[in-house]
């Protein structure tokens, strides 16, 4: 019953619409599909999106883990409040995220920092909206981590960095990777916050999602669908790679699992 319900629900909700996109991407003919995905502007947008998503993900890997560490292992006034804030990027409409970042770090920045309408601005928006992913993936794992191993290692004379590197990180790595993968997927699809702060200049600061929107807007839904399919496939690939990585890392960390 479980698998049946799961399959039906996913079909109705996810599979059918995605199938519709797939169908629409080729319904104008395979030539149009190829033309759409090889158009230089589309390729430029895809390259930019993937590059920025990877960079943001790398930053999240580090910062997300550090943040989770501090939230779990450290203690200071206001920690609970800050912990609650971490989920806010999910709840704030993307347009609000874009606009406040623009206000703080754009032309009218009170700090004199202007990264708007550049690739740095895009990364800022992406970092904001993907903040919770790695943090929330790592927190529960870190909280449940058996301190005995760490204490044993420490009592055997291992320095803190060694303990971190050889005991803690391997246990956290699966969670870190799964959080980073979700964040990466989100970066690829993000539209609302990026479109405000990006500048959207074709070949320079135009992300795939904005490019796709442009195709829809100029009555080329087939081309839009085609580029979307490429993005989807890319995400799937990345997610699969991450999953494989995660499983390998899990296998090493918990040989009994």
């Amino acid at each position: 019953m479980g698998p049946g319900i799961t399959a039906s629900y996913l079909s109705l909700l996810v599979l059918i619409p995605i199938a519709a996109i797939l169908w629409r991407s080729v319904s104008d003919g395979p030539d149009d599909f190829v033309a759409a995905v090889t158009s230089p502007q589309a390729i430029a947008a895809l390259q930019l999106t993937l590059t920025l998503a990877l960079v943001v993900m790398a930053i999240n890997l580090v910062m997300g883990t550090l943040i989770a560490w501090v939230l779990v292992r450290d203690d200071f006034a206001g920690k609970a409040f800050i912990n609650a804030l971490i989920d806010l990027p999910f709840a704030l409409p993307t347009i609000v995220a874009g606009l406040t970042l623009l206000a703080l770090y754009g032309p009218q920045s009170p700090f004199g920092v202007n990264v708007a309408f550049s690739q740095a601005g895009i990364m800022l928006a992406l970092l904001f909206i993907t903040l919770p992913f790695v943090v929330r993936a790592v927190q529960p794992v870190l909280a449940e981590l058996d301190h005995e191993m760490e204490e044993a290692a420490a009592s055997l004379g291992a320095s803190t960095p060694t303990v971190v590197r050889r005991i803690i990180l391997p246990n956290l790595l699966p969670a870190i990777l799964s959080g980073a993968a979700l964040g990466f997927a989100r970066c690829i699809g993000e539209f609302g916050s990026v479109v405000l702060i990006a500048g959207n200049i074709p070949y320079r600061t135009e992300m795939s999602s904005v490019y796709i929107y442009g195709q829809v807007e100029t009555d080329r839904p087939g081309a839009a669908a085609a580029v979307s399919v490429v993005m989807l496939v890319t995400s799937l690939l990345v997610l699969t790679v991450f999953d494989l990585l995660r499983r390998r890392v899990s296998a090493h960390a918990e040989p009994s699992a």
Partner: protein
Amino acid sequence: MTVVLAEASASVGRSTMAGRLAVAALALVLGSVAAVSAPASVAAAGNSSGVVTLAAYTTPREAYDEIIPMFQATEAGAGVEFETSYSGSGDQSRAVEAGLPADVVALALWPDIDRLVAPGIVAPDWWQNEYGGIVHDSIVVFAVRPGNPKDISGWDDLIRDDVDVITPNPFSSGGAQWNLLAAYQAQIVAGRTEEEASEYLKALIANTSVMDRGAREALTTFAAGQGDVLIAYENEAIFAQGAGQPLEYVVPDATILIENPVAVTLTGDATDAARAFVDFLYTPEAQEVFGRKGYRPVLPQVLAEFDYVQPANLFTIADLGGWAEARPRFFDPETGIVAQIFAQIGRAAA
């Protein structure tokens, strides 16, 4: 486990307090919102007759907010209820095509309504009235900072090295195409050749730092402090000024007349009331509202009441061969002049 439970029970004291605070906070938020909000309005059921659904683009919202009650106060409009939807012109056009119920469509440019002919949503002769289906006009202007510090007065100023231009992306916004067409044609009108005009476009686009996905977004970007000049529609600039945004606008000598169309659909369920409403839009009262909201009325006598600047050289889309010719010529993603410019600039930058 008992140890954990003991610790947890100690924290229960704190957590319960936090929990109580949380409930209080939630109650406060929801309660105050509910208290100060008007009761959730129950819109009239979609399919009952006598409800005119207006699908319009974003900017004339304030105008229609005034005009609709005026219409309802007339004999023809008595008892007619309205449902309104405002969105980007292209978005709206596609939404109507995809089944958004609409009795009246009021969009930013001709092609957005005309593309509804093929799916049978508007009649092929939708535009045949005294005004060619156009209900109000505007022109392309330059929005600048207060005091015009960069001293911008004409199209040539826009390609200066020290000037940063904002204009929406013509590939993600049909309405944005007005701006570039105006830029191009202004060159022709000034006596330059087609090649020189294309070169101008290239210089202009190279001078653009941000290409938002629509006119209103571009206005937001400019208002946020980016750029020295925004190629905008006059009604947008006037609207922004009215909303307290610090900007002025300059009317170039040569510019294009932006013509915004309106049509009654074939697929609505209140066609008579819709037709009466559209007729009302051409009355002096309604046209005067458009005039006050920054649009140029199409009724000459009403236009004369406002002191809109008349550019020395005002051309229309017809001078470019109409949309049917101009659109593919400039904006076809492969062969269009602008598309090729983008590719050239892009590859040079890449």
